[in-house]
């Protein structure tokens, strides 16, 4: 158990310390937005050796890419990398049971109203193509069909009639054996500019990752299919607090706060962290424990490691990465035993920066920024 917690704590860099006191009165779920003056005042936040930070990233939609096939060195995500000298490329017919043409599919991190798609094609032969959306889980519908101009030097813009919400876009084109290798140099969605909308990765340390997923073709399950995950950042630009290491002490700073609890049910404390560090947290040497603060003097008492850490945001999304990853929200959830909150409506907790789950290594790097702290009867992953 301890090893598992250690591993998870290393991933998250967060341990939870719970402080017992009554400050915030109220029902769960209760949410504290760190860095937000009003929310911090309500929750009586007191912090030392922390800093308020905020990460503003553009609203990036493109998350991952897959294709009916690809030549090595011309993977599908290269149609989204903004580089003129790279492209997605395929030749011949798609493998059975795919019967129609080749396709490139782009996954988005959320539903958008698809209005236009811009494509810079590979080669100078025209393409007979369709643009399909995916309004529901496995349903694709053609939103635009046509023929390209047969040039490869600039983007061609295709407008979609009756724009509607979609989570993925597929560009499918007919196979033309005489045309030689076919493919796409660049794709743009809704006029998003590169690189903000389409960076291959949020950080240099977050390369494009290949994840193999089960894939269905004509209701037939292909064993696995490579998905090129771009690991895009999703910060909402809000504020957060980072716990900082200290040169003058073994452990780092801390954040004390009140938060509501349920008097009858055990509580989960979930931290929403921004996992934008390229290095694993155990390499950095940062973690956060949650501690209770006992007595009037608020002396640290019991302490807790996260029960689990996840980056899952959308339960429908088939694509999950390793945790934590740069450019991702990470959720560290701590289970508080019932005896700590029984009969209480609020408690006072401390997020304490430490170096590792055993607390026998100094904190040597700032923790991932904590944006939101949620108290609820179940883990809060929004």
């Amino acid at each position, binding site marked *: 158990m301890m090893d598992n917690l250690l591993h998870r704590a290393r991933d998250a860099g967060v341990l939870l310390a719970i402080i017992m006191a009554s400050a915030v009165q109220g029902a769960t779920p209760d949410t504290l937005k760190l860095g937000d003056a009003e929310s911090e005042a309500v929750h009586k936040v007191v912090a030392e050796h922390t800093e308020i930070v905020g990460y503003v990233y553009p609203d990036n939609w493109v998350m991952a890419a897959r294709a009916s096939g690809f030549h090595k060195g011309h993977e599908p995500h290269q149609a989204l990398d903004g580089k003129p000298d790279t492209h997605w490329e395929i030749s011949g017919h798609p493998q059975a049971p795919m019967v129609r043409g080749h396709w490139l599919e782009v996954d988005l991190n959320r539903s958008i109203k698809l209005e236009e798609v811009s494509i810079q094609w590979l080669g100078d032969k025209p393409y007979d193509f369709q643009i399909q959306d995916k309004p529901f889980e496995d349903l694709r519908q053609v939103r635009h069909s046509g023929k390209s101009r047969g040039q490869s030097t600039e983007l061609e813009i295709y407008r979609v009639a009756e724009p509607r919400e979609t989570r993925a876009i597929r560009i499918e084109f007919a196979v033309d054996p005489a045309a030689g290798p076919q493919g796409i140099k660049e794709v743009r969605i809704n006029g998003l500019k590169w690189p903000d909308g389409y960076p291959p990765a949020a950080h240099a340390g977050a390369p494009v990752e290949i994840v193999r997923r089960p894939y269905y073709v004509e209701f037939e399950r292909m064993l696995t299919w490579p998905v090129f995950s771009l690991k895009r950042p999703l910060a909402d630009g809000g504020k957060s607090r980072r716990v900082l290491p*200290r040169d003058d002490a073994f452990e780092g700073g801390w954040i004390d706060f009140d938060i509501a609890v349920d008097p009858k049910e055990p509580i989960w404390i979930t931290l929403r962290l921004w996992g934008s560090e390229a290095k694993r947290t155990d390499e950095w040497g940062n973690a956060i424990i949650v501690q209770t603060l*006992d007595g009037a003097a608020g002396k640290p008492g*019991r302490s807790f*490691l996260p029960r689990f850490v996840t980056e899952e945001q959308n339960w429908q999304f088939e694509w999950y990465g390793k945790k934590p990853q740069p450019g991702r929200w990470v959720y560290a959830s701590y289970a508080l035993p019932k*005896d700590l909150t029984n009969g209480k409506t609020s408690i006072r907790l401390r997020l304490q920066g430490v170096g590792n789950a055993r*607390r*026998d*290594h*100094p904190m040597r790097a700032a923790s991932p920024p904590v944006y939101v702290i949620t108290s609820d009867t179940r883990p809060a992953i929004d």
Partner: protein
Amino acid sequence: MRTQHKTILIGVKFSRITAAIARRGICLLIVLSAWGAPQAMGAHLTAIDLGDTESEASNKVAVQHAEIVNQTYPGTATRPEAAGETGRRISPAKEQNAGWIDFDARVIPDAQNYITLRVWGSDETWSALNLLMNDGTVDLGNLWPVNTREKPFPGRWIYRTCWIPREATDGRSSLRLRLQAKAPTFAIYNIYTHTEPYFEPPAGDRQGTPFVWGTSREKTADFPDLEARLRERALNDIKHVMAADLIRSEYGPSHRNTLRMLASLPLIYHRDWSGHHHDPQIPRRVRDAVDLHVRRQAQQGGDPGAMFYRGWQAHGLIALAYHRLHEQFVELGWLEERIDHDANPGTPTVTRREAYADFFSDSFEWRRSDRRHYTNQPVHISRGLYAMQKALRMLDPKRALTEAQALWYVHEAMGLEPLRSREFGIDAEAAGFPFYTITDKGLTRELGYVDGYGELTDAMLLLVEETGCPRVKERTRQFLTTRSYFRIPTNDGDGFRALRGIGFMSWRSPNYPYMLRYNGIHEAAVLENPAAVRLGQLEIEHGRPYLYGPTVSRGVHWDAAETIHEYERYLKLKEMPMTAHRLPMEPGQPDFVWADEEVGVYVFRHGDAHVYGSVFHGYAMGGEAIGTVGPLNFTRPDADRFAEVRFEAFAPPSGLFINVDHPFGRRAYEQTPPPPGMKQWQELPPNAIDRRAGLAYFYRLHYGDYLIGMNTTGQGSYRQNSYVLAIPKGYASAVDVGTGKTVDLKQPITVGPRSTLVLHLIKDQQ
């Protein structure tokens, strides 16, 4: 706590009552007359005068390899005539079976019975002596489980009292017992059985000459000035170190001495009186030696653990040798030289700086991962961790911890930070019940009290000087002051006054008596607090250094650095004004009570009686569960009572038991409740467990006219509680030994958290 049959049922009910009342923080102890039929103190059920034909016959004494011995001793002021006593010494030859003495003993059924042996304190033959029954088939325990390397109580009698397991005596009024030894042991003069733990000798018994503290050892005519002798010793050690072959790296019987000498080289270099002040060969030798260590570690696959195996101090000594000469390495440009760091021609050379930084960084991470938990271990290890980080800060600051961060490991070892080197410590801290290697009152924390391994001021002084940390110094001062309670006046083998430590109640390798204990010259000069200065000044006053020859004995613990320091510290000590401070057990000092409830140790002085004891000693699964047997030493100038007594122990029920199969039967020992959030105490590994599982919340010991109540619960902990001390019948009043004040026994006497009360009970004369 279920300590005796009669208490079991009452105890269960009591526990429920306790739980109900405990919410108010008060526990009510019910006086139990469960000790069986009241017996007048001093009344003996059995009294055998060994060597006396009539007494042996009436108790059906039979012997094998146990010859009669005679003991004579001179007269005293009150009994001027010389006298003699007879006894028997069990002394089987090597090729013989064990020797024994069989006898009939009367006991009280359904009561706690004890056996007392009268032993001569000047005896020089000591070994284990077991008590058996059923013709030697059932072992009831070793009556002498201590090391005795010298006369324990010269010229006087020792009354050795041990409890007899209830399983042997319940329901019986007599039984046949055997005292058995497989090697020659001490002579036994009298055997008694009784039901009170405090043994009162028969009124007619003759005692030896009361202890008189001898005179101080004088300087002999051929002994030079002390300063000159200490300097001579230091210079001789320096000469030895300078001639030693230290440019070597190996694991073997002498590697520790080699590394200590290596670490002392910089001290020699920096001292203008050493004869080798700024001697250029010293940095060269250190450089070449460290290069070798670096290379050997690289050849071991970069595994520091393969260098010196468990070696707690090895890498730290190398770090000390280096960082004490870092400036010289810089001046001489050695750090930027490229060296073959791994004896592998296939790998490129690296700068000495990189090679050393890697060496100390890797060694630190390895050593950090196992800092152990018996106090002396983390203390020694933390010294090395600190030294390695200091070296690394000099070589590559980016990779190093800050000073404050490196100090944490020293603080952890000194009990200033919670222990996190073991899972039990981490779990306990997470549960809000942190474990510290040294108690709040300054005793080490292995299991219970420990003698040799608990005398850690020498190691701590190194931490004080090498870290310069005020917290470490204060903690060491406190530690030393605590240890000063465990110094008793004694006479050395030549009859000169000396100080001895306390070892009989050490949970491992107990010694009775413990050795003479001095480290005062070092302690006084470094710590400078009253107790340390007194110990230093007593060491000089007692003339202990007059035993010093011109050369130090270079045994396994020898360290030239210590000899160098002793000379320099003496120079400081001799300039210090005489302190008015007196050690608690020095003659003429007032009565006192001192206790460390976290390890169940009590010490008190009342008139001419010195009492030491422990209620947390390891019987019953080594502290994993609550025990009700512990050692006690009650010393008066004319007689010594060295006992294993039973007492009562109280804690809320936990439902967690450990069963132990003794030769005399199986017992279930209950554990204390674990902290909230923990369902049970750890079971494995056998040594690295939280032994507070066996520390009861409250102990009550009635010994003679003394009543001890010890509340071990900590203020603010989940255990916090107060207890009302039950007063035995037959006493009209009492005096609080610690304050000297009279106590009204008609009022409830409450013992608060983390406190100990010792009452001297005064009998009701009606």
